[in-house]
């Protein structure tokens, strides 16, 4: 009888933005990977494995009891006293199924048709064009800085890691380290193209051309 469970999942999943990584899924994923681990250790793993997600230190402590109430995990060991950090959990079959449903849901199921810049360009009035160009330039600069940050992260990683052949986990993690700079570079390029073209349009409009753009 898988169908009712899947319907429940569908309701649960609909609250989750598919493009984001919810804390509950990250915690559940680690519990599946490391069953019967302590709450404290799961919290440490969360911080180490998903550094950039900036989960709160208390995420594992608050999420695990909630997942237990929803029967996604169950407690395999209750530590004596009131300190719950030594409790241990493992995933239920329902939890496993929720996790796998999230894992294989297309992260960009809804294409980015509601891109903020797209809407602003569409609704831009002639007199707003110079400010819109400034915004596109600013976004280009922010993306370029984030590119530099991602490139720095990759550089640090390659400088400090060992030169021996990478194991599976390291290879998978390195894919994102290499892909992130490309993402920000392409985003920066996109806003550059937008700003360049809007500037060209502004230059062609008398009275507006002189005030438009950065240079």
């Amino acid at each position: 009888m898988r169908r009712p469970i899947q319907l429940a999942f569908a309701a649960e999943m609909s609250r989750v933005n598919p493009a984001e990584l919810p804390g509950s899924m990250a915690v559940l994923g680690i519990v599946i990977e490391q069953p019967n681990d302590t709450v404290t250790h799961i919290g440490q793993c969360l911080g180490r494995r998903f550094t950039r997600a900036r989960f709160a230190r208390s995420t594992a402590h608050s999420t695990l009891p909630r997942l237990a109430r929803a029967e996604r995990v169950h407690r395999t060991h209750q530590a004596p006293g009131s300190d719950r950090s030594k409790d241990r959990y493992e995933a239920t079959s329902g939890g496993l199924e929720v996790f796998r449903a999230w894992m294989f849901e297309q992260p960009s199921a809804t294409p980015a048709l509601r891109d903020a810049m797209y809407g602003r360009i569409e609704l831009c009035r002639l007199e707003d064009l110079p400010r819109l160009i400034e915004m596109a330039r600013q976004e280009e600069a922010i993306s370029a800085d984030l590119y530099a940050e991602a490139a720095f992260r990759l550089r640090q990683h390659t400088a400090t890691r060992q030169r021996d052949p990478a194991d599976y986990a390291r290879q998978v993690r390195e894919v994102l380290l290499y892909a992130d700079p490309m993402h920000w570079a392409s985003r920066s390029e996109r806003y550059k193209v937008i700003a360049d073209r809007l500037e060209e349009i502004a230059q062609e409009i008398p009275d507006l051309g002189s005030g438009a753009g950065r240079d």
Partner: protein
Amino acid sequence: MPAVTDSVLTLDGVWKGFDRGDDRLRVLTDVSLTVAPGQVVAVVGNRDQGKTTLLRVASGTLPADQGSVRVGDLELTGLSDAQLARVLRTEIGLATRAGPELRVRVRDYVGLPLAVGRWLRWRERRLMVAEVLSALDLTGTADLPWRELSDWQRVLVELAQATVARPRLLLLDDVIGGLGLGKKQAATEIVRGFADDLGCGVLMAVSDHAAALPSDCVWQLDGGRLKLMADLTQSRVVPLHRHLEEGRAWFGAS
């Protein structure tokens, strides 16, 4: 008297253009950059943005219209052909994707920079070639003709030829373009190894960012001008929060 510098390559205010009928096509506009020993500097640009021109100017094989090009402390502008040929032989390793004539054997192609203008015995040359082929895991291909090599092997052979004479400056003209991401990673790490182990400075022109990293410095060549994308020699991490907040402020919290 030229200033003493720590850089293996210094381009300072370089302009370069080509005559196209009555017009002058400007390819490089006020380009300045430096490459230090042990440093990998990448220049990213689309096709026809002037990457090859930049590398040819950097090697001295194409004279700049204006500006200064120095390899170490030696100004290349104004050198005679013989002096320039000597710099190319002793100081610079150049790799392109051109490759040799199809029947040329790997061993002979890689050894080419050692064959001209050097007082090396045949045995020494052979040893140096064998060493670089072994370092790049190419020993098994030494007697193969160029036409029988895979794309990946051709990249490695180009790198082997460029480094066989242990140059101070390595110029790579989009050598790893066209490879898949995994191979690009592997190739850039080999290049990184040249910089770390041989201490040479590397200037590489690439057509995408996947081939540019991990470098110490990444420039974008666009419309003939260089724009600094990342200087990773500075121990600097951009405050991510500030940018995200800035971004949200621009686009509104939605």
